[in-house]
């Protein structure tokens, strides 16, 4: 069988991710087979016959072979899981009852109520240092359905939005009405962090929290030092606390 040019690689390594390795191996094997069967040399193959010989159906077959092992892909966009629940795992999280749902991060620092009646439920990275902490009512905003609900009814005053999407689009129509944001992902330079800074909304990113339910009264330590960008490249991370106000 003919070889691919990249088959002889003095320094090549195995990709760190198993799915990437699996797909890469499958595609290179496909390219090798089609090149071998093509009866042309590589210059005629690469931008000539390969365009017809390596097809969308071939790639669909690779996906099917992976799924046939029982593997299910992780999803990042809700639409992906909703349209093809057969190929994506983790559907349970989408259908969880919002009233009973809470983020449960294993690294969340928690504590007993202090003298002010605040029990720590975790911490996050402060986008901008403000004169005072933000206090409000926690409301999870994790789906388009919730956004549409608030577009119709209005965002309740004093809402501290609890979000797991560090992007700036899911909450676009309602973002400016939040009294605060706790995002369980991203960094202070993620789009949500950038927009919170633009709007002047108190915001903690990359929050590791647990035990906060919809409707809980919470306080976020936006008076803490802001997370410096260089902290993401080996510097010291400064963290801001998140409390549930229990009395």
């Amino acid at each position, binding site marked *: 069988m003919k070889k691919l040019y990249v088959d002889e690689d003095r320094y090549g390594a195995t990709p760190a991710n198993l799915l990437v390795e699996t797909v890469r191996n499958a595609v290179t094997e496909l390219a090798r087979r089609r090149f071998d069967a093509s009866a042309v040399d590589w210059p005629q193959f690469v931008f000539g016959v390969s365009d017809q010989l390596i097809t969308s159906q071939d790639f669909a077959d690779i996906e099917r072979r992976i799924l046939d092992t029982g593997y299910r892909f992780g999803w990042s*966009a809700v639409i992906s899981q909703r349209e093809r629940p057969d190929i994506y795992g983790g559907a349970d999280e989408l259908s969880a009852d919002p009233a009973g749902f809470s983020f449960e991060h294993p690294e969340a620092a928690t504590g007993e109520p202090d003298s002010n009646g605040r029990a720590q439920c975790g911490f996050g990275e402060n986008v901008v240092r403000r004169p005072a902490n933000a206090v409000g009512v926690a409301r999870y905003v994790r789906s388009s359905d919730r956004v549409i609900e608030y577009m119709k009814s209005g965002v309740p005053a004093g809402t501290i939005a609890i979000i797991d999407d560090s*992007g700036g689009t899911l909450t676009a129509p309602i973002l400016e009405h939040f009294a605060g944001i706790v995002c369980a992902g991203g960094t202070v330079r993620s789009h949500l962090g950038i927009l919170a*800074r633009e709007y002047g909304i108190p915001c903690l990113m990359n929050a590791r929290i647990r035990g906060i339910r919809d409707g809980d009264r919470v306080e976020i330590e936006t008076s803490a030092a802001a997370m410096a960008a260089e902290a993401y490249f080996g510097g010291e991370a400064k963290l801001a606390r998140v409390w549930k106000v229990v009395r």
Partner: protein
Amino acid sequence: MGSTGNNAMSHSGISYPQLLETNNLMQNCGDETFWLCLTRTVQGSKLFPVSPYILLSYLNAFYRYPSLLRKIEARLPAEQIADRARNMGMKIQNSALGWALPNFYLLGRELLLSLGMLRPQDALEDVIFVMDFWKRYMLSWHRNDGHITNREFGHRAQILPDRRLEVFHRDLYECVPGDSLHTAAHAFLAMASQYGFLTSCESRISLTNSGPYRLDDHHELIVRDFMDLAECSLPWLDGIAADVPYNYLTVPMSVRDCHFTIVDDWGSFESKPDFTAEHLAGVGLYTSDALTEGYMPVGMASRDQLIATLHSLHGVLKEATNKLWLRIAGWTRDQMVDAGALVYYNIIKDLAHVAGVFEVDDWLTIDRRAARFRPLLNDEFAGQMLGSLVAGLDLPNHQQSPYVMMQHSDRPARTYTPLPYSVLSGEEYVPSCGPIQPGSSHLDPKVDRYRTSAGTLTLDEYNRRARDFTPALCTDKYRFLCETWVKYNHHTALANELYELEQRESRTLRGRGTGNRPR
């Protein structure tokens, strides 16, 4: 140039200096891409399948940029388009030209290399051409600061000439937190930024910042551009953005007691302390496009008019945001992936608008060679593969001799595979991936309506007018009257004429010419 087969070429048309320079440009792009992706962003979206659309856009860029850039250059050379870019705020700045053009293309190449579907010497003349086009563009666009990228300048962008900075500076309206202008400007800036992330399908490519420029010991000027706001070459804005009166808006901002330490090739910034609204001390508002004589003031006749304009634009953008969000929320995954892939891939489309050669099939479809990869682009694979391409550098093609210590990480890896010099000693190569092939899209077809400074035009009319138009400052008479020439010839009638041209729409400097003494 000799041929060793139907598609293979021997080396005779390629020179050693060409390869050396191309590889240097690629290495610089790779080093910066690694740094940007590691330190400047972590993105996720539950609304958009971001990683799948990014990979699709890279593939489309690889297969199409060489042909489309040649088509553009046949009408207007890269360096002349950059001359125009230096005098307006279209989407041919950062991150479009400073980063995306070479890196989208090269990341597509690297993706195909990683899958065994390409050799380092395949599409070799395409790679040389794309990088050369980029280099010439960037040198021209950055000619006032003398660098090729913000990275090379220590992450700073001083694009504008003295005459334009003088107008931006003198025409600013001062503001302080709590006053009407500050409140209106703050609200507009946040809303326009928010709208931009949405129109660009969860990417930051429709806004950019350049500068900083020193105003005095306590103030720096930062220039922010908002792009693709109205009905334009993003089909999902058809109808939605019909009431948005400008497709491009430029906001010069005076910022008090805040030093910008990084303005990167993505058009993002860092400052000490953080630039929050409390530091905003002055603001202006302008529009421009391929048909304007540079920057045209918007609502700048009076302070009250500017406040009213900013309020009005805020309302219009808020309305458009809500409508667009609802449209997007009803999309299928294929539509979301296509919109994201297209807005990413066509990030450089304004090159075609300036040259007057924009065509819908070129910029608003996915080439069938790229489209065939769709079944592989599930969320997980795309996310992991994207991570490997830009930051992980753990694919076989990334690995180098164990003695190598790459910039920023000391690992034996590199982001981009260099072109092999062995082609100069006879190893065959394939020059090009060939012309663009038919494409497709799951989105509604583009309505033939484009908001310009000359009103809403059909594409044919927009292209025709763009081809027929050269801004006065970019004509042969003025084009090479550079900052060095002005330094020593400011007393001449020609210098005065040059400054008066820039000042035609200025509320404070009109007709002053070079008579305004430097600060």
